[in-house]
């Protein structure tokens, strides 16, 4: 009995080893290399994704209707938990008063025009992102099209990226976020406790040809998304014809969110 099973074991093992060693040869024989992963034909492609936010348009809408469409759209499709405690909250897109969003631009007399005006803030998808530079596992990384992504499955939760981000764009799951998700969107993963998260420029929507959810949700047309690599894109045109500002431009992180004020 013992003999037989050992012989069987060796046989199976031998065949398996043979199979494994034959695999690379087989794949060569198979000829044409198939891509392991293929994007949808509809996927939006860009060289450097960016967003131009026209705050005046946004404020008009806010004044009339107290509009929060972009924030709600983003947080609901991305399963962002609603945690009331400001120390533990998770935010992908939200508003900050002018003087907080642009602390280095604030002075006595700007206050008259812009004081307490809410600015939409989110991850800047910097061209030179310090968060990516410091991550010890490449859990946060930059795609060729400029989107700064998070791999929730690789993140070890060291929070070095949070220390590195000068924009406060990153949130950490101090506890299990799932009990705080009101209605789960089954199309997008929920997160586990102990990982960092932030705006992903709706990478999952770009992949199927859709613009970011916040842009789509904005009825005022205040949020414009597009490719700065294309001189004819709407964002490129807006940047040519308007004076725009970026958050903490002097730090050299090259943010890709622009504000028209």
């Amino acid at each position, binding site marked *: 009995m013992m003999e037989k099973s050992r012989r069987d074991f060796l046989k199976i093992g031998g065949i398996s080893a043979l199979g494994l060693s034959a695999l690379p040869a087989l794949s060569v024989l198979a000829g044409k290399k198939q891509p392991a992963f293929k994007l949808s034909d509809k996927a939006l492609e860009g060289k450097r994704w960016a967003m131009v936010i026209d705050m005046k348009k946004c404020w008009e809408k806010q004044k009339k209707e107290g509009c929060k469409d972009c924030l709600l759209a983003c947080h609901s499709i991305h399963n962002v938990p609603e945690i009331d405690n*400001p*120390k*533990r*909250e998770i935010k992908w897109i939200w508003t*900050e008063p002018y*003087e*907080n*969003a642009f*602390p280095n631009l604030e002075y006595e007399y700007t206050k008259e025009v812009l004081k307490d005006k809410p600015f939409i803030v989110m991850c800047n998808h910097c061209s030179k992102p*310090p968060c990516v*530079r*410091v*991550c*010890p*596992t*490449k*859990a946060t990384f930059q795609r060729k099209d400029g989107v700064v992504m998070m791999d929730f499955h*690789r*993140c*070890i*939760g*060291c*929070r*070095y990226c*949070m*220390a*590195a*981000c*000068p*924009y*406060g764009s990153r*949130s*950490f*799951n*101090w*506890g*299990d976020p799932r009990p705080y998700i009101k209605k789960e969107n089954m199309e997008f993963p929920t997160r*586990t*406790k*102990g*990982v*960092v998260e932030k705006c992903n420029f709706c990478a999952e929507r770009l992949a199927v040809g859709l613009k970011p959810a916040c842009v789509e949700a904005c009825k005022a047309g205040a949020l414009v998304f597009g490719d700065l690599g294309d001189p004819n894109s709407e964002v490129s045109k807006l940047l040519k014809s308007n004076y725009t500002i970026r958050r*903490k431009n002097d*730090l*050299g*992180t090259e943010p890709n969110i622009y504000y028209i004020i």
Partner: protein
Amino acid sequence: MLDLAFKGSKRYWRWLIFLLAIIGVGAACYLLQLREGLKITGMSRDVSWGFYIGQFTFLVGVAASAVMVVLPYYLHNVKEFGRITILGEFLAVASVMMCLLFIVIDLGRPMRLFNVLLHPTPNSILFWDMIVLNGYLFLNIVIGWTVLHSEKKDVPPPKWVKPLIYVSIPWAISIHTVTAFLYAGLPGRHYWLTAIMAARFLASAFCSGPALLIILCFLVKKYTKFDPGDKAINKLSNIVTYALLVSVFFVLLEVFTAFYSQVPGHMHGLEYLFVGLHGHGKLVPFMWLFTVLCIVAVALLINPNTRKKEKTLLIACVATFFAMWLEKGIALVVTGFIPNPFEQITEYMPTAPELAITLAVWATGFLILTVLYKVAISVKEEIEGL
């Protein structure tokens, strides 16, 4: 040699059991943290590193105890240190062990720790910190143990140890430098963004490590038959004096640059620490305590009479160690996050379970230290026929 750790007096065992009890309480709290997440700590979205990373930062400094005896002994032939190199090295081992534990307990997903090895990322300073800390731990265990073993056998240490000892000297510099680089290279964290950070880390390390070593030498002298020797302690106290003065000087340099330039971002951190910022000042009492301790330590150390007297030297060393702990272990890390990127202030205070876990890591360090010192001192007593 390890068998020597299992033969000890009643007091030795009582001390170990006491440490184990603290570790037990902390371990229970850590299980809670594993289940609930880091929300059981006082850290927040704004102050995302706290006590754990502070202790890690401080203890990297304490590990300098080794290089501050090894360098004079092997490069400058300071014979007095021959008796205590092993004490410096084993203190470094215990310190680095605590550093590594503090990093691991601070992780949100500790079970993914090995992703750092699985996806090595040389552009991350944390990756290099892992390498230098583990390397330094390895060097000190191997060097310390091998040299002690040779002493026990009454033979000269094997030839291959010498190169390791020489490597361990610049390696010690690297652990402080790389740890400082964790902080000093981040845009937008003004309190940390200073070129002098690595120099400050080295200076505070060179006083806090040897200060603790002096305290430990006195304890060894009191509770065992082995006498580390007054000459060695004397030399060490000189090192502590210079390093403390340089350390204080460096802090004053930061104060000058911030306040003479009047750049708000550079002033905020120091204002928060010493006078409070916009009505927030939880660390103010700690920083004035730091100031007082520094003054006391400097006064006692620069006066040769008080420096050479056992009692006053001990006070000076405790003051030095505690001052550096306040500055590195609490103030440095937290203040980097104040104000936050939106120039708002969220303060930080550790919670009870967070403190219990912290205490348990310290207890683990002291357990390792006690066992290693027990072995080393038993060997020394045996050699000297005490």
